[in-house]
C-alpha cells in the first residue's frame, strides 16, 4: 500500500513539476508561439492557463505526501537516524516546511492569475509562481534523494 501510494505521489509530482516549470518560465520570459528553439517553445504557453492544474496537482501531491509521510516516520526515519543521515533528515524537514508554506499560498496564487492585482502588472503572480516552483523542485529532489538514500552515497 505504501509503495503504491509513493509511486502515485511521485507520478502526480512529475505532472506538477512540468506544469509549474512551464508556467514559471512563461511568466518571466514569455516567448512568441512561432519560435523555433526548444527553449522558446517551452516558454510559449499561456501561463494563466496552468493555474487550475497547478492548484489541483499541488493539493493532490501534498495530500498523498501527507499520507506517505506517516509510513516514512515509522518505517524509514528510524533507519536513517541509525545510519546518521542527519543532512538528509534536515533537508526533508525543510521539504515539509516549504510544502506547508506553499499550501497557504495557493489561494493568492490562484487569484493572482485569474485577476492580476492592481498596479502590480502580474509581478505578484510571477513571484508566487516562482516560490511555488522552487518549493516543488526542492521537494521533488529531496524526496528522490531520501527515497534512494540507501543506495545514494552509501
Amino acid at each position, binding site marked *: 500500500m505504501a509503495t503504491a501510494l509513493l509511486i502515485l505521489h511521485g507520478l502526480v509530482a512529475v505532472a506538477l513539476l512540468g506544469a509549474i516549470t512551464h508556467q514559471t518560465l512563461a511568466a518571466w520570459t514569455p516567448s512568441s508561439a512561432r519560435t523555433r528553439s526548444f527553449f522558446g517553445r517551452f516558454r510559449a504557453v499561456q501561463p494563466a492557463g496552468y493555474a487550475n492544474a497547478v492548484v489541483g496537482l499541488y493539493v493532490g501531491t501534498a495530500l498523498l505526501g501527507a499520507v506517505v509521510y506517516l509510513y516514512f516516520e515509522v518505517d524509514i526515519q528510524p533507519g536513517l537516524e541509525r545510519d546518521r543521515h542527519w543532512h538528509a533528515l534536515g533537508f526533508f524537514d525543510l521539504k515539509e*516546511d516549504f510544502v506547508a508554506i506553499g499550501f497557504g499560498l495557493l489561494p493568492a496564487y490562484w487569484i493572482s492569475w485569474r485577476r492580476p492585482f492592481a498596479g502590480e502588472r502580474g509581478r505578484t503572480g510571477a513571484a508566487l509562481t516562482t516560490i511555488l516552483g522552487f518549493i516543488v523542485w526542492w521537494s521533488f529532489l529531496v524526496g528522490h534523494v531520501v527515497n534512494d538514500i540507501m543506495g545514494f552515497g552509501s
Partner: protein
Amino acid sequence: MTFAPIFRRFALAYGTGFALIYVIARARGLALLTVYPSFGIVLLGMHRSRDVADPAMDFLAPEMWWYGWTATAALGALVIGSLATLCPARWARWFWPGWVWVAPVLAMMACVYLTIPWFRQ
C-alpha cells in the same frame, strides 16, 4: 461588493498570515494536534512521548507535529483572512500586495534557521 475583491483580500491576508503563523507555530511548538503514526492516535495539542512516559518512548512511539503546525497555521490564517474580508475596502489600499510573497520567503528563511540543528550533528 462583488465576490472577486473580497476573495482577493482574503487570499492576500490568508497567504501572508499562513506563512507567518506557520513559522511561529514551528518555533514555539504550537501544534494544534500531535499524531502518533505507530498507534494511529491523534491527540489535541502538542505532546512529547518522553514527557508522559519513559524517555525510551520517544523512540518506540515517534510523534509528528507537522500536521499540527499546518493545522495551526491554516486555522490562524483563516481567522486573519476572514477578518480582512470584513475590513472596509479602502483599508486594502494600505496593504502592499507584495507582502504575500515576501512573507513566505522570510518564513522559508526562518525555517532554514530552525533546521540548522540537523546539520550540526
